[in-house]
């Protein structure tokens, strides 16, 4: 890298977003030998931090510990990356190749990467904005919630997705009373029904009350604090703390206002390029078109996970730096940690029509093998990391060779099968 080529004021690449995706683009550009200027613009004031731990270790800590840094302190500066924090982007000028910042500054770019992430879905009910009702998406959210947990006794969780249930587990570990209210099974959007059932059972055993057949009708409050949550069956649940975890919305406003194609995410091709040839989108904010398999029509997918953010960032950075790359096609994987549940998912279970669980669910260590038309499409592991790691290989290379009957063989393990059946 030739430092003389780095000129932050006339950056060649401007990256909007200082989360996992945005920071990874900057690091990967340098790893790929890119020597031009790089600017990362983030609207959060905090140094880039590890986001998954906000709803786990960081929230569970009983001291005022700092968040886990996303990269070794000083790494971005040493790579010659200019990082502007606490700065919003006001607008994108695609024809003029510039962005305007909230500070009034304009940045020119040759390539623009949108890594704007997603923001929490807002519950449109009177009271949801009060001081003891919390969302959990950013470090500021997590710190506020952590401080409030110290005095809480009776918690209502709205939603039953990953954030909601990770929080519920942290709250139960502190012996708070926890009620979870949601209109569908646990983790419904992300995992198979058999896994949902097990996750629900474990949370109930931990002592949470799960009401998964209803929504929230409204909040009772005194003008400053929510005092109770009324569910859609009319039952009232007293609460001194409410956490709302009902999903995330991709941050697409800048892209949309600039005229880029947007549809629940900034639309990109399999090379992560948007409808503008020099504008890219990666991570939670990006909806990627994928070609159809087996003669099916193509579709698109938007994923919210660290692995997807990092993988897409690496891929886009490599192309920007001049490497030849095909389509982005990494096997998606993600994880969650909820009390005794260490969940690791590879592939996308929502595509599946058949589920096989070899082994004993009651052991607390098992995997759900998910098939679509007889082919393996996802593996969901509970406290079974060896299955998960094998699944990431199997789904990449061998999904079509593994069928429900394969998994039903006595003594089947995925790692063993891969060893005995080299490609």
């Amino acid at each position: 890298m030739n430092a003389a080529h780095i000129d932050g004021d006339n950056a060649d690449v401007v990256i909007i977003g200082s989360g996992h995706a945005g920071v990874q683009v900057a690091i990967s550009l340098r790893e790929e030998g890119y020597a031009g200027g790089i600017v990362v613009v983030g609207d959060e004031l905090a140094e880039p931090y590890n986001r998954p731990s906000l709803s786990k270790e960081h929230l569970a800590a009983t001291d005022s510990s700092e968040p886990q840094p996303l990269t070794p302190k000083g790494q971005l500066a040493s790579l010659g990356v200019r990082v502007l924090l606490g700065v919003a982007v006001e607008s994108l000028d695609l024809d003029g190749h510039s962005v305007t910042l909230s500070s009034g500054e304009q940045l020119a770019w040759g390539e623009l990467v949108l890594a704007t992430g997603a923001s929490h879905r807002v519950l449109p009910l009177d009271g949801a904005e009060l001081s003891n009702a919390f969302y959990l998406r950013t470090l500021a959210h997590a710190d506020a919630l952590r401080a409030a947990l110290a005095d809480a006794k009776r918690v209502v969780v709205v939603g039953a997705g990953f954030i909601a249930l990770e929080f519920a587990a942290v709250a139960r570990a502190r012996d708070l009373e926890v009620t979870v209210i949601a209109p569908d099974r646990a983790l419904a959007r992300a995992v198979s029904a058999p896994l949902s059932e097990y996750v629900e059972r474990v949370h109930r055993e931990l002592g949470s009350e799960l009401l998964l057949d209803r929504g929230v009708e409204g909040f009772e409050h005194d003008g400053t604090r929510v005092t109770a949550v009324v569910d859609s069956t009319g039952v009232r649940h007293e609460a001194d703390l409410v956490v709302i975890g009902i999903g995330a919305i991709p941050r697409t406003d800048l892209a949309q206002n600039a005229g880029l194609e947007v549809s629940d995410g900034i639309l990109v091709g399999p090379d992560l390029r948007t409808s503008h040839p020099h504008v890219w989108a990666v991570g939670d904010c990006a909806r990627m078109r994928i070609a159809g398999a087996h003669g099916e029509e193509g579709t698109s997918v938007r994923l919210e996970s660290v692995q997807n953010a990092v993988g897409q960032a690496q891929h886009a950075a490599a192309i920007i730096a001049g490497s030849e790359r095909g389509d982005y096609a990494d096997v998606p994987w993600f994880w969650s940690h909820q009390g005794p549940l260490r969940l690791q998912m590879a592939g996308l279970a929502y595509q599946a029509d058949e589920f096989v669980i070899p082994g004993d669910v009651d052991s607390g260590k098992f995997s759900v093998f998910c098939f679509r038309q007889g082919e393996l499409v996802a593996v969901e592991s509970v406290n079974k990391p060896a299955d998960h790691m094998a699944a990431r290989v199997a789904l990449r290379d061998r999904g079509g060779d593994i069928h429900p009957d394969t998994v039903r063989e006595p003594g089947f393990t995925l790692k063993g099968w891969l060893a005995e059946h080299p490609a």
Partner: protein
Amino acid sequence: MSNITYHYADGTEKTVEVADGVSVMRAALSEGVPGIIGECGGQAMCATCHVLVRPEYLDALPPVSEDEDEMLDCTAVPRDDERSRLGCQIHVGAELPHIDVDVPERQR
């Protein structure tokens, strides 16, 4: 306070001083030590904080849990049966006031 020394393949090393109770993974990120990612936040679920512990410290470490053991089978640089650990599972402190680890060349 405790010390951790990170060694690299090119012969360089970096020693940091951190509060007792801090993990080898977290210390690297907080103190600007390269080569450790810690993607999962310290739950032994990603194997991106792989380190090779110098032999003289092995006896002072807590045993490898079943989860850590399975993740160590999946490190980017293949596991060393004796010395490989996940940095998030090693905490310095009174029992382990100093440790030397080698940082592998890749984490993913």
